């Protein structure tokens, strides 16, 4: 593997709410390599989106990076001022939001929304930037004639393509996809994922995909991290984690997709709903000592409830944070 493009070390992001401090991201470390794809998976509220947004400090007012480093090509983004970060956004790292929903300004023409980003970071004329947008449209499989439409005139899939075009506008090195395919139907979902994959390869992009849907991450990412309650519980090569899930939580996630034949799913266009996992996700404000998962874990013992599990390398590029991983049958 090549050198890491992005190296995150012991990142902590907390939200200050009136009820108390929520440790949304509670000390996570991971690397993303140039041109490689990385995925975050976990239940909603586990902190995966916060982790991704922390990279470019795109946090709500009450969210703050409390510790750790975000090394992007060796520079610590976490230590930079808001203004410095602002100039790096989109140029180096861009994000694809859930475009099918509300990530595009409804009262601004698509072309304007994209050229705005380009002209913010590059000193080029409007016609030139429009030309670039046309190119981007073609690249993501949209008819350039639709350039001056408004978002509501697009279907969900088309909007998502617009989002991708927008993300690529400034030729970034890293693209983060935050649930990029959620709310799309399965056929479109697959198309978008394929598009992303193609673009990644052809443009030599690094991508970070975030999804609550294990199947999406397994399918689209070379490496992944499973998050639970602000912590990474298992991380490594996708195939490795899929075939040998070690953490009880990962096991349950995997088990929740009994029929994990992704190809088949795609062909039939049918989605198998996973079984839900027993118990509720923890309250982000709660202070669970030891392993965060222990209240829901059937194998947990005293140690699990007292000591934070440490990273254990259990295979080639396969780490797990669990005291009992080897005790589980």
């Amino acid at each position: 593997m090549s050198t890491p493009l992005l190296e995150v070390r012991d990142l902590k992001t907390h939200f200050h709410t009136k009820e108390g401090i929520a440790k949304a991201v509670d000390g996570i470390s991971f690397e993303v390599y140039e041109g490689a794809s990385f995925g975050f998976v976990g239940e909603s509220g586990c902190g995966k989106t916060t982790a991704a947004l922390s990279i470019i400090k795109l946090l709500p007012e009450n969210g703050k990076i409390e510790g750790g480093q975000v090394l992007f090509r060796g520079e610590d983004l976490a230590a930079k001022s808001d203004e410095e970060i602002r100039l790096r956004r989109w140029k180096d790292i861009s994000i694809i939001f859930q475009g099918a929903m509300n990530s595009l300004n409804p009262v601004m023409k698509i072309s304007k929304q994209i050229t705005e980003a380009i002209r913010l970071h590059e000193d080029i004329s409007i016609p030139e930037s429009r030309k670039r947008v046309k190119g981007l449209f073609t690249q993501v499989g949209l008819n350039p004639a639709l350039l001056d439409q408004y978002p509501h005139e697009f279907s969900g899939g088309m909007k998502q393509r617009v989002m991708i075009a927008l993300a690529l506008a400034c030729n970034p090195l890293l693209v983060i996809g935050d649930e990029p395919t959620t709310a799309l139907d399965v056929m479109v979902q697959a198309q978008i994922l394929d598009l992303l994959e193609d673009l990644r390869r052809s443009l030599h992009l690094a991508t970070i995909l975030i999804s609550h849907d294990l199947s999406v991450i397994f399918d689209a990412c070379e490496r992944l991290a499973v998050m639970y309650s602000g912590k990474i519980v298992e991380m490594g090569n996708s195939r490795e984690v899929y075939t040998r899930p070690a953490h009880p939580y990962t096991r349950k996630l995997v088990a929740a997709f009994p029929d994990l034949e992704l190809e088949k799913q795609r062909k039939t266009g049918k989605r198998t709903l996973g079984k839900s996992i027993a118990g509720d996700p923890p309250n982000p404000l709660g202070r669970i000592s030891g392993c965060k998962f222990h209240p829901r874990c059937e194998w947990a013992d005293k140690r699990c409830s007292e000591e934070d599990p440490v990273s254990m390398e259990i295979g080639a590029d396969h780490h797990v944070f669990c005291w009992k991983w080897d005790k589980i049958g």
Partner: protein
Amino acid sequence: MSSRYLGNKIAQALITIFIVLCINFFLFRIMPGDPLSMLMRNPRASQQAIQKAKEFYGLDQSLPVQFGRYLQDLLKLDFGVSFMFKKPVTEVIGGKVGPTLLLLGVSEIMAIVLGIYLGIVAASHRGKIVDIGTISVSLLLYSLPTFLLGMVLILIFSVYWGLFPSTGMVTAAARYATLWRQFLDLLSHLFLPAITLALTLIGEYGMLMRSSLLEVLSEDFIVTARAKGLREREVIRKHGYPNALLPVVTAISINLGLTIAGAIQVETVFSWPGIGRLMYDALNNRDYPLLQGIFLLVCICVIVANLFSDLLYMVLDPRVKS
């Protein structure tokens, strides 16, 4: 598609206007007391004179016939003759529209500009003292009856400090050395009533803008804009305002009905010679034609304002067109 939307809205407005016409006509016919006794003060009026007056005002016909005539006349923009002023209603109302428009216009503009500004300030200092202050003041203004606010302002600015006149639109029958003085005179008379009306509106518009902006700022596309690297100011200006103003624009046009209620009170307290006071006087004198005229005018204004807000929305929000 958009023409269908438009057509639909116009049709709705027309139906509403027709129903208002009916309400307008029949409601005023069941008012107690005989309008003729107000019209003819002479208790010894001869039968001929009464008959003549009845014919003149069309009161001798049966209700349906009167209604028919009423509709016919309306088409000719003939609103009948005011009992009180014994002049055509259009003429009477026409003389009072100016002052009301002036009052409403000035206070609306003040309220819109200040209200939106306050809303933005409050929203961008969410939860801070400025925000809490704005909300508290807005709520207080909301809870304060308009007339009471007017009286309190009179108490302070006219009675105790003697800064502003408290009545009328100009110093009555004054002659002015210069046009500028005349303007100042109008301004000093306008100050208190306009402030009163504006204050009651500022709170509302401020709250409206605040909540609208906060709602917009929590939208995903704002995060997109931030992610693109726009400055926070630009995010709010380019993506926040255009979206946040949409509901505010609508609310302001729809609010006209409410503003008119305020205007009636303000005009009563400050003796402002406008439609509001005219309506109050017409009511006391049971001047049916005049009352009908005013009521109709006000209703149509509100309905048209609603229609206008729909159209404006169509222009401002591309989503509505489809």
